């Protein structure tokens, strides 16, 4: 059993190097590094077995359940980083779901990918991860915008503007902030770093050209999902900041 983990044990040597460096630099990261090492190991091994089980069973409901759990964890993580935004969890969950289901659904419908969990789950994972980051960035920004521009927003409202009109600028800025990482990534993709999916495929023996074909699909899908999630998160959050009578709430 352990022989299969021979490579992993050898990789531990690399962690030892990091620990020694941390000691030497008095960065006091040894404890965090060790905890991280153990966590990464346990989490990934657990996920490995879970995925193997899901792939073998290949049941649509189980696949769906897996995706829902991933989305919930993603939304929980996003909400944890933007505690100041009222009902952040609900907003994040809805936004991540919209982005994920729309893109994965479209790819399934157009048969770009098959319903095989081998494809669906990793793709959903990437989509959810990117939507999670976008949601966090978008919500962080909209909160800062609205709190920071309170006077301006109320001055426009006082002239009879709707909440939408009064927050238009803030929403634009927030969507841009949420989408900047994926847009930047598209610009330099392949030039600086080979993306994860592609790296994985090449390591697993696929030809680079084949890997690139999939990667192109993946990055376009991610861009679409992130766009949807960003827009949804900022728009949904407006309900937390404005009343239906176009009044700015106290936050």
């Amino acid at each position, binding site marked *: 059993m352990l022989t299969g983990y021979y490579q992993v044990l050898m990789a531990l040597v690399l962690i030892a190097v990091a620990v020694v460096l941390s000691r030497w630099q008095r960065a006091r990261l040894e404890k965090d590094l060790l905890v991280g090492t153990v966590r990464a190991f346990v989490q990934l091994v657990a996920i490995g077995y879970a995925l193997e089980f899901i792939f073998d069973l290949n049941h649509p409901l189980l696949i769906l359940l897996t995706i829902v759990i991933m989305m919930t964890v993603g939304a929980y993580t996003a909400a944890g980083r933007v505690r100041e935004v009222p009902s952040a969890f609900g907003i994040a969950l809805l936004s991540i779901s919209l982005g994920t289901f729309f893109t994965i659904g479209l790819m399934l419908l157009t048969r770009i990918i098959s319903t095989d969990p081998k494809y669906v789950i990793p793709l959903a994972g990437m989509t959810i991860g990117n939507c999670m980051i976008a949601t966090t960035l978008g919500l962080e920004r909209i909160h800062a915008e609205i709190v920071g521009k309170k006077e301006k927003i109320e001055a426009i409202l006082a*002239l009879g*503007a709707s909440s939408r009109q009064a927050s238009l600028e803030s929403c634009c800025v927030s969507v841009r902030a949420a989408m900047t990482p994926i847009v930047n990534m598209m610009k330099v993709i392949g030039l600086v770093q080979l993306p994860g999916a592609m790296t994985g495929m090449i390591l697993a023996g696929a030809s680079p050209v084949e890997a690139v074909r999939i990667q192109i699909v993946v990055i376009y899908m991610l861009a679409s999902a992130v766009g949807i999630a960003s827009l949804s998160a900022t728009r949904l959050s407006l309900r937390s900041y404005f009343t239906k009578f176009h009044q700015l709430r*106290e936050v």
Partner: protein
Amino acid sequence: MPVPKLRIENLSKTKVVREGKKRRKISVLRDISLEIKSGEFIIILGPSGAGKSTLLRLINRLEEPSSGSIYLDGTNISELRTDRVRQRIGLVFQVPVILTGSVREELSLPLELHDIKVESDNHPEELLRMVSLDTGLADRDPTQFSLGQKQRLALARSLALKPEVLLLDEPTSALDPASSLAIENLILKLNRKMGLTILFVTHNVEQAKRLGKDCAIIIDGGIIETGKPEEIFERTTNRAILNYLGRS
């Protein structure tokens, strides 16, 4: 008897304040009742923290009252569309807020929000004239204006919507004495010439006397006296007012 332009009935407002981790309810306005006839000029006079701004915000419907009602021409404003209420009842804030990059945009913004056409009485030059700003300023960037100029511009921006009532929240408190006097006279003129109904909030007793209009004294969230400042001054025995007016 004609319906008053604005009728405020038993208006109360409580707010939640945070004290460290605790939350406590405080009563900001208590049982305010007030009637303002069309074309009338009323001063709301009271010390800092009395609830004056809150009262104006409730009338412009930037906030909801905890209880009580506000009637505009006899209709409860909660039954009207918010944008209509805010078009008919303008609010000028204590510190002017500039919203755009040019005077022209600043003055056309309210019209765009309400899909109103530019006509002879609401085009930028005319609005600038109304608030005695040089029409040559129309293409300037208002963020570089002096406070007094900004306040005039904010006033012109509210006037663009031809409001029936204008709420002014200490419009001169950020200005020097000369600019304050100029703004006071401008507002008196708007009331006299255009018949605009005005609610003028101030904490400044001298200013209230200078304006020489009817006044409601608000202390600690309640209206304690109404009348001309000098008369209240003569007749009142209320300690809070005497304290406030500087004679105890």
